[in-house]
């Protein structure tokens, strides 16, 4: 008999109770005489405690309150803590008097497939249907405020991961740890022992639970890590598993993370996951008071709680007999043991016959209900109906090995007819299954090195319960959470949903939060019987992670709020803040969008900044651009493969605009290419494409060119980049570096504010412009000097929006908008820039007929708003409203050098349609603007402004 150490106060539906430390909520409620715990999902039938662990399908409650409330918690899987508040769910106005129970009276009107047959019609009606469906059926309510708990992630590596802290798992973990291996043992319960917690056995002279504690201490002493209250929920390739550790119980406020999601990489995985008991099928087998025999035994032996006063045991195998002894020892009257076998025999049965009334060839037909609970049952005993008065029915229809992780890892299954189920076959990832999960039940066989004393003899393999063939009218459940009955399975078969996958979806079998842990094999046996096939032929559904529900917070871990996604900061972020920058995300980067002055909108500010550049000088931060140095004797070959433009004759100290293609010939990125020394080059790329370019160049070097004598070094983070543009930029920069600035597409080195800089004469704005590169950690002084000088010259800083206005006016494409992954160089007007001799990546792709013949391609065009109205980005380009679009607007901007609005677009055969008037039509934004098609370059098409 278990001794209790103190009491723990808690409430259920507002009523105060007291339990004992280590009790589950389920055990405490049963001890307090509470049988009705929940209402079922669909029919609102009364439900009580059926299981003793994570497999519980019915007893779902909300634990905690306010922001800490956690819905759909299994009462069998939450351990008492002082102040625990539990509330029933899916019942109104009260659990006992639930209006929704009317569904049960109308059950014949809402069979499986009811929704599919009833709620059809225009999709808009679903908005109405859904409201009522969700009101009528459902689980608990999610909290309406943000989860105050926080969740952590943790990685761990080991030689051997053992999942399951029962006798087999403990023994395996200790063996490995003492052999010097790095071991992690995971157990979902708060206490180790697994099945030992519900057995009256001694091992090496100690009770099972104490032996388990000793084993944990030995594993830890040998260097192993033991994670209790941790569930291995998913098993992926390469022995990667994730497990969720509960640091506090559901609804319990606490310090530190509430849960930790462990990412486990293991050399070897040992699955000691035990079994889950199966229910028997009979009418009203879901009534409060009907429970699995193993759960009743756990209540008695682990928690010292009697599940009733008068109990009937119904079983198909020996194991449930143990429950009779356990309950009887607690003072429960064992009314009868009903064994479906015609001639059960063995030591435990002989012992039972000496104390109890044992009936062979006997099985329940119908549980009798009184006041929402079990009052007795009608049974078939040797072909004769017989009634038994009982308030507890402990049933067992066999046991199913827990094979979820084995199957997630791709393991095979082996059908065992004697057990009526599957055992694990070969593992795919070097994983092994041991103990009861592998079909080994005798403790002495599992612990062959230990002295095991089991007063009821060795446990034997459990045989399956009998098939239910609607012997009596009523509802016999196979899926207790989703209210799926044998009648639903039969209906699905009659209506042609014979495949188990179809049956599952038609009836929602196994689709609840319990994923059919208790009832799946029972249902499969029923389906196989209905189809007249053997069980393996009926098929199995997929075992998908997670094994038990995992809160989204655990998946997110620390990646929430400000940490939801990484944000890349410019080295000059603080300086931009000081200048009043408004920030905008650009990929992972945060970049200054504009620097509005008092009273200015963003649009006004960006237009002012753009016009400032056209009129005098502006400074913009381009540090986020990709930058790569390629150096070595074979650097030219590598650059020539990556860049599609000519460069072999490029002199040292010179650069040029370039474009990089994918192997299919489409534009991947663009930038500039500079020859820093004879065998050293600098390639710049777009900000968003930098990571892609880095991967691409590594691929080209290592795979396509076979490790040339050249290195690609990503110097994007090293060099801060500051572009200075405008008619006064050259003079300003020359003053700062104290030397003449290079001509367009030339470079020089110098010093600004004491920092070494590299000056590249390149323009993205259409004005004379330079990029000043300075090591990131030295950039502040250079930026300050440039801004001061620009402001003194009547200019200042400008942001991303102004830069966009300027480049649209100049007809420069941007990666992602015009170069959208479907555009070839010729589509973007760059065909003439490519090396005629080819030899670059994408060259062969461009020779495909579909690309070589430009007819029908969408080509870059400029668009001018005829009445000056703004053009919507993304708008369709059509000849008339309602026509198929001939293209779309890629980027739009106000005219900087002048008035009105302009845009760039991709238009079918656009190069031949200059002068044509189209509609830029965006029905979703209620915008239609007449535009005239023309060249993409609106500003200084000859490039005269690039030269001093």
């Amino acid at each position, binding site marked *: 008999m278990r001794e209790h150490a103190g009491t723990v106060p808690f409430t259920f539906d507002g009523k105060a109770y007291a339990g004992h430390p280590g009790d589950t909520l389920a055990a405490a409620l049963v001890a307090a005489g509470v049988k009705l715990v929940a209402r079922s999902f669909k029919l609102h039938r009364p439900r009580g405690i059926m299981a003793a662990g994570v497999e519980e399908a019915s007893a779902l409650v909300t634990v905690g309150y306010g922001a800490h409330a956690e819905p759909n918690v299994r009462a069998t899987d939450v351990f008492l803590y002082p102040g625990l508040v539990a509330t029933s769910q899916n019942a109104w106005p009260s659990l006992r008097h639930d209006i929704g129970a009317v569904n049960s009276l109308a059950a014949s009107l809402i069979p499986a497939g009811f929704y599919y047959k009833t709620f059809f019609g225009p999709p808009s009606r679903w908005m109405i249907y859904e409201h009522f469906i969700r009101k009528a059926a459902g689980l608990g309510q999610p909290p309406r405020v943000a989860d105050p708990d926080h969740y952590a992630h943790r990685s761990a590596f080991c030689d051997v991961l053992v999942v399951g802290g029962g006798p087999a798992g403990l023994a395996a973990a200790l063996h490995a740890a003492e052999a010097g291996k790095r071991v992690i043992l995971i157990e979902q319960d708060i206490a180790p022992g697994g099945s030992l917690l519900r057995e009256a056995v001694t091992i090496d002279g100690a009770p099972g639970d104490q032996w388990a504690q000793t084993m944990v201490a030995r594993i830890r002493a040998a260097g192993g890590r033991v994670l209790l209250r941790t569930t291995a929920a998913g098993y992926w390739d390469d022995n990667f598993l994730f497990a969720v550790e509960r640091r506090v119980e559901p609804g319990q406020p606490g310090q530190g993370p509430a849960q930790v999601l462990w990412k486990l990489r293991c050399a070897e995985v040992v699955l000691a996951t035990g079994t889950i008991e199966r229910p028997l099928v009979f009418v009203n087998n879901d009534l409060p008071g009907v429970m699995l025999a193993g759960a009743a035994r756990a209540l008695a032996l682990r928690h010292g709680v009697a599940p009733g006063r008068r109990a009937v045991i119904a079983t198909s195998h020996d194991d449930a007999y143990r429950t009779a002894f356990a309950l009887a020892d607690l003072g429960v009257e064992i009314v009868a043991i009903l064994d479906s076998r015609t001639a059960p025999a063995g030591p435990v049965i002989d012992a039972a016959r000496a104390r109890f009334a044992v009936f062979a060839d006997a099985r329940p037909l119908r549980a009798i209900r009184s006041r929402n609970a079990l009052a007795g049952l009608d049974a078939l005993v040797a072909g004769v109906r017989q009634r038994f008065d009982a308030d507890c029915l402990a049933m067992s229809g066999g046991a199913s090995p827990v094979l979820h992780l084995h199957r997630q890892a791709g393991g095979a299954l082996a059908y065992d007819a004697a057990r009526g189920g599957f055992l694990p076959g070969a593992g795919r990832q070097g994983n092994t299954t041991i103990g009861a999960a592998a079909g080994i039940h005798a403790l002495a066989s599992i612990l062959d090195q230990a002295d095991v004393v089991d007063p009821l003899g060795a446990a034997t393999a459990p045989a399956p319960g009998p098939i239910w063939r609607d012997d009596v009218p009523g509802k016999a459940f196979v899926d207790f959470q989703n209210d799926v009955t044998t009648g639903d399975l039969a209906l699905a078969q009659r209506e042609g949903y014979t495949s188990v996958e179809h049956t599952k979806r038609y009836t929602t079998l196994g689709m609840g939060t319990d994923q059919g842990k208790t009832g799946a094999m029972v249902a499969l046996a029923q389906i196989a019987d209905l189809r007249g096939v053997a069980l393996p032929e009926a098929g199995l559904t997929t075992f998908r992670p997670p094994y038990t529900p995992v809160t989204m917070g655990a998946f997110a871990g620390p990646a929430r709020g400000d*940490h939801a996604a990484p944000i890349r900061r410019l080295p000059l972020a603080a300086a931009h803040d000081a200048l009043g920058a408004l920030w905008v995300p650009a990929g992972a980067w945060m970049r200054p969008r504009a620097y509005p002055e008092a009273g200015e909108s963003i649009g006004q500010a960006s237009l002012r900044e753009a016009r400032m550049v056209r009129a005098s000088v502006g400074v913009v931060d381009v540090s*986020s651009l990709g930058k790569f140095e390629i150096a*070595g004797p074979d650097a030219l070959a590598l650059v020539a493969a990556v860049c599609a433009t000519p460069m072999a004759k490029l002199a040292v100290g010179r650069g040029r605009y370039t474009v990089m293609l994918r192997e299919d010939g489409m534009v991947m990125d663009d930038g500039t290419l500079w020859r820093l020394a004879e065998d050293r080059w600098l390639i710049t790329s777009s900000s968003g494409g930098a990571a892609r370019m880095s991967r691409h160049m590594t691929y080209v070097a290592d795979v396509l060119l076979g490790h040339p004598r050249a*290195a690609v070094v990503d110097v994007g983070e090293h060099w801060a980049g500051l572009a200075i543009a405008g008619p006064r930029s050259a003079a300003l920069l020359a003053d700062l570096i104290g030397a003449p600035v290079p001509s367009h597409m030339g470079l020089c080195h110098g010093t600004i504010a004491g920092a070494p800089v590299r000056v590249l004469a390149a323009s993205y704005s259409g004005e004379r412009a330079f990029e000043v590169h300075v*090591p990131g950690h030295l950039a502040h002084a250079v930026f300050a000097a440039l801004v001061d000088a620009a402001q003194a010259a009547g200019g200042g800083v400008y942001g991303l929006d102004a830069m966009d206005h300027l480049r649209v006016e100049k007809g420069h494409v941007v990666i992602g908008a015009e170069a959208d992954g479907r555009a070839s160089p010729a589509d973007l007007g760059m065909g003439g820039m490519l090396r005629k001799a080819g030899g670059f990546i994408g060259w062969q792709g461009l020779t495909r007929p579909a690309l070589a013949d430009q007819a029908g391609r969408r080509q870059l065009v400029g668009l001018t708003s005829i009445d000056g109205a703004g053009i919507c980005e993304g708008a369709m380009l059509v000849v008339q409203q309602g026509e198929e679009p001939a293209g779309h607007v890629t980027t739009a901007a106000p005219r900087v050098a002048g008035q009105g609005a302009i845009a760039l677009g991709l238009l079918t055969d656009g190069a031949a349609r200059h002068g044509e008037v189209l509609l830029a039509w965006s029905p979703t934004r209620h915008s239609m603007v007449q535009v005239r098609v023309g060249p993409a370059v609106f500003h200084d098409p000859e490039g005269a402004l690039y030269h001093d």
Partner: protein
Amino acid sequence: MTEMLVGPVGALLSLDLWHGTDDAAAALAAGFALPAAGRAETLPTGSVLRVGPRRWWLLGAGFSGDAIAQALGDSGTVTTIAGGWVRVQLVGSTWRGLLMDCGLIDAESPDFGPGTVAVTLLSHARCVVHVRDAMRCDLFVPASYAEHCLAQWRDLGWQQVAA
């Protein structure tokens, strides 16, 4: 409590060699040993970290990039990269666990001892880890990710102090 000392990385060069057979010659030419994969060497002039199959980092002002490049000739190249990295020194007994809180790295491995170098994702950023001793570990964080990483690590309980 583990403390984070955050500061600039100091002088940092990337040394790239083309072929494995160049290692010995390059080491001879450069005048220092090139550590094997996953290892670092501490020299009077600074530290040498192997951060890739063909890439080493030279940390410290004692390395002359021009001189090393000249010595290497056509067998390798040297590139300055100091501006792109922030050094975070972890000081305390729990730094291994803290690494495993924000990355998938086996920092508890017995092989992950002093002199070990790893390149791995920590808090979404590709970082370089250099184990100094039982109580100290250097992290090199891409400068643009540093604010994000440091904020997350502070939330994990790391205490940031000035370097």
